[in-house]
Structures are given as structure tokens and as C-alpha cells.
């Protein structure tokens, strides 16, 4: 049983972010991390490996060369090997181009489960897992708060409007998991040392049998304007008052906005 976790390197949530002159995110200017939600997918994969449900765990990322750091960090958490797909033609790739490239790489790696995070911090579409499943012609099990493998089936627990369902599909599948699978582990010092010796391959578009033309310029969308959000009025602070005075102020504030009658 083979599982590949797809992970993306993104600017840290807290990092200062900047746009380049052509309105793309300036990735060089921001501290880069593993997409936080992908760490939950890694955690789920490693738990499946530890329980014996999965034999091999590999990592796959598409991105600039420095994304190798994110793969190395994933390998320090555990797993066996990693593949980076990197190519100048992929700069600014959108959901469709990303999915097309990941699908081609997954065709090569041929895992039973391709596991993804529920969303990337920067694109936030949650579109890549479903688009990869569609391109590969395999079922999608998305938004799992737990992933299990039982015989030739994969199953996820998925929230509904009021409770949850268990949803299943025959292997091979593309799955995505949420931050409810359990807190991601930290890499140990031993893990960091071990990661240095784990195999990592780098593939170009040509290695995947794809050309820049196949990707139609990497993005079918373009940003035409980037600006700061509208400034909000400053916060009114209610402090150093008695609770009764504070409550009077709150109710007056609510009444002025017609939120209480």
C-alpha cells in the first residue's frame, strides 16, 4: 500500500508579504513553510504508516526550487522519499495547471492514495484535490476528519450540516483531510538527521512528458489589481469602567446600530 502526500511550500502566515511588479506574490521576500494544512495530511499519512495500513509514504511538491526545503522538512517528520516538480514554465501556476502537473507526476508515482491538505494558505481554493482526481479519473474523498484504509477501500469521516458521514471509495483515490485528524508532530533531531539521507528526485515538465504549451501559459487567470482593504474606523475601547458602566456602553452601542430595539 503506497501513499503520496502532496504538499505545497507557502509564505508563513505571520511573514510580511509583498507583491512583485507584475502582481504576483513575491515568494523570495517571505519566510517559507510547509502549508500548515498539509502538515495535517502528513500527520495522517504517518499514522497510517505506523499502524501498518500503509507501507510507503512519499512526498510530492510542485513549486520553485526552494520548495525542496519543505520536502526535506516533511522527510524530517517521517516518510520514505520525496519528489519535487520544478520548472520555470510553472511560475504563477493556477489551480488547473497545478492539478495537471500533479496528476502527471502521480501517474508516474502510482500511489493507492494521493493525500492532500484541505486548502493551501495562499490559493485557498481547495480545488487542487478534486481537479487532480478528475484529471486522473479516480474517485475523490475530500474533507476527511479521519482517513482509513480497509481492504481495497478508502474511507473518510466527513462533517455534515449537523453530524457526520462515513464516505468510501475503491482504491486508488485522491483524498484530502482537515485539521481534525490530529496535531502534526514536530520533527525530532534524529528525524532531521535521517531526512538528509532520504532520496529526493527532481523532475522538470519535460520529465513528465508535458510542455509549457500543454499548460497554456500556466495560468488561465490573471490579477489585474492588488490593493489594501478599506480602512476600518479605529476600535473603541471600553476599559477601566465598572461592569455596569461597560454594559450600558455596549447596549447604547448596539442600539445606535439598531442591533437591539
Amino acid at each position, binding site marked *: 500500500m503506497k501513499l503520496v502526500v502532496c504538499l505545497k511550500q507557502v509564505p508563513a502566515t505571520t511573514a510580511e*508579504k509583498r507583491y512583485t511588479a507584475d502582481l504576483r506574490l513575491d515568494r523570495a521576500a517571505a519566510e517559507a513553510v510547509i502549508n500548515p494544512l498539509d502538515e495535517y495530511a502528513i500527520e495522517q499519512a504517518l499514522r497510517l504508516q505506523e499502524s501498518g495500513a500503509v507501507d510507503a509514504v512519499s512526498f510530492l511538491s510542485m513549486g520553485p526550487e526552494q520548495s525542496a526545503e519543505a520536502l526535506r522538512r516533511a522527510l524530517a517528520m517521517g516518510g520514505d522519499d520525496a519528489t519535487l516538480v520544478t520548472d520555470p514554465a510553472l511560475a504563477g501556476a493556477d489551480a488547473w495547471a497545478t492539478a495537471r502537473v500533479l496528476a502527471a507526476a502521480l501517474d508516474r508515482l502510482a500511489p493507492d492514495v494521493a493525500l492532500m491538505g484541505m486548502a493551501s494558505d495562499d490559493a485557498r481554493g481547495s*480545488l487542487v484535490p478534486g481537479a487532480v*482526481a478528475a484529471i486522473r479519473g479516480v474517485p475523490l474523498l475530500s474533507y476527511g476528519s479521519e482517513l482509513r484504509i480497509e481492504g481495497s477501500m478508502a474511507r473518510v469521516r466527513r462533517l455534515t450540516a449537523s453530524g457526520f458521514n*462515513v464516505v468510501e471509495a475503491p482504491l486508488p483515490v485522491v483524498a484530502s483531510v482537515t485539521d481534525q485528524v490530529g496535531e502534526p508532530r514536530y520533527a525530532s533531531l534524529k528525524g532531521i538527521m535521517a531526512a538528509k539521507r532520504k532520496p529526493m528526485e527532481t523532475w522538470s515538465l519535460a520529465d513528465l512528458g508535458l510542455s509549457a504549451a500543454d499548460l497554456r501559459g500556466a*495560468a488561465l487567470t490573471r490579477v489585474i489589481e492588488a490593493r489594501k482593504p478599506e480602512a476600518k474606523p479605529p*476600535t473603541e*475601547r471600553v476599559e477601566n469602567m465598572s461592569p455596569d458602566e461597560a454594559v450600558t456602553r455596549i447596549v447604547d452601542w448596539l442600539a445606535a446600530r439598531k442591533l437591539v430595539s
Partner: protein
Amino acid sequence: MSIDIALLAEFSDGSPSRSALELAAGAAELARQSGGAAVALAYGPGATGAASLGAAGAARAVVLGDGAAPAVTHAMAASAAVRELAPLAVLAPATPNGRDLAAALVGLLGLPAFGPVRAVRIEGGRVRTEQATLQGTVITVSEPAEGAPEPAIVLLLPSTFTPIEGGSGSAAVAQAPDSQPGAFGTVRIVESHPAEAAVANLEEATIIVAGGRGVGSAEGFAPLRELAAVLGGAVGASRAAADAGWVPYQLQIGQTGKVVKPALYVGCGISGAIQHRVGMQTAENVLAINKDPDAPIGEFADLFVVGDLFIIVPKLTAEIRRRKGI
């Protein structure tokens, strides 16, 4: 040239979901801008009654499938319908089901995708979207690249459009063109565990009283429920409160929970972490009650009350009752 605007309309328990009503109103508005018609792609239990979406703004409806099968099982039918209709845009709700179907369309048809967006319009026959990115620190306006295939797939945040009230008319209903369900058709629900007690749909609430780790326990939510009741609102939570098991995950607000846009959000014992903030920052009015004067929520609340929620919240409920005379 394509001018029609399609929307994904989810049905549950025999009626259109809130998102279907919002998107039907949105598609009708965009169709006026493009000179086309709003067409609903209806799926889920009750979708055969999609004619009712006429009153919500849809001129036509195509039924992808009835029944309780996972939304993604309708992907091939959706793709066949989109190919036949050739719309300018497909509006999809930024919900798990809406995103699954939208993603399948992107993959199957190789389409440009936008969002989740907070605004969309048609300008000179082109789709233009407005999106808050990078945790809300930047607003970007995007459009399909020159020569990109149509339609554009647009994910919409809840409450971007307001359902049409008191509309009339019925949508002309057609069946989706024949298609094979393919691999997506093998996805099945094998167990269903509904909750014992009803859970509010936060995306519909106009007032939300949310509790965080500072609430301390499941019982601690009682005063928040009372405040929500006098205000006519619903109770929400931070991930810390949901993780602790004090409230169900359906009430979690934030990056991995619900994105809400109420008229009033009241945060009690919530610090205002960025992952929480992205779920509530478009609330019209934000009131925060926190005993830490330096809590980050104090930097973006409209009214920031420094105090103990267990003292302030019950007094607030009592004072509102007193003024209302109840």
C-alpha cells in the same frame, strides 16, 4: 459569445439550500449585466423540484441528480450540462460540496477558477472577481487570462448575495444530458450519523455570539446561549472551543470552519488568532469581550470591552431584557 450564468444549486431535505438561494440571486444579477439568463444546476434531495428556483432568480434549471448521494457523484452530469449550456461563468458556493463539484469541473474541462471571492461582476462581457488574499491583508481583482476557455468557475463566500424575497415565477426544468458517472460515481456514503440536537447553520445567522477557550467549559456556553437568545442570534465558537468538545465542529468559525458575515459578531473569550479572524472579519459590527487588554482581537474589533465575560455577558443579557421589557 457566452452570456448565460450558471450556478450550482444544492438541495437538502426537499428544498434549496441557503447557498442556492444566494447564488440564484447573484446569477440573476450577473445575467442582467451580461444580457443572458441565470441557469441553476440542481442536485441533492429535492432537486427535481428545481422549478421553485424561478422565484429565487433562475430562469432555467437543469437537474443533475436527486437523492442523497455525495455531491461529487454529480460531477460528470455537471460537466456534461456545462458543456451543453456553454455559460460565461459558473457560480459555486465555497462550501465543501460546492468546492468538490467546482474542482471536478476545473479538472474535467480545464477551466480558469477564482476564489473564494467576495464580489463578482460582468464588465464588458468579462468576468471580474474581487478576492481578499493573504489573510485579508490584500484585495485582488482578477479576470480570466486572454484566450482562456469559458466558463470561469467562481467560488463565492456565503452572504455575498442576498436571496430574493417575495419573488415569483418558476424555472423551466430540464434533465442533464446523459453521462456516465465514472470514477466519481463510486463514492458512497456508508454510514450517516446525524447529531442528536439540531445544529444552527451559522451562515444564515444575522447575529452570532461566539465563545473561545476563555469560556472554559461546555457549561460556560450557557450565558452565551442566553445572550444569543435575547439578541435573536446563534452561538458560534473558535477552534479551541470546538477542539475541546464544548460545542460541535459545525459551530467553528475560521479558516477551517465557517466563514460568516453577520450584522453583529460578539466574541467572548476569543483572542482573535488570524485563522479565526479570516472567518469573521467581514462581519458588519464586531464586539469583543476579553479580559486581556492586549488580546489581538482588540486591534480589529469595533467595540473592545476589557473585562471578564462571566461578569459582562450575564449583565448584558439582563440589561437588554430590561430595555426590551421582557
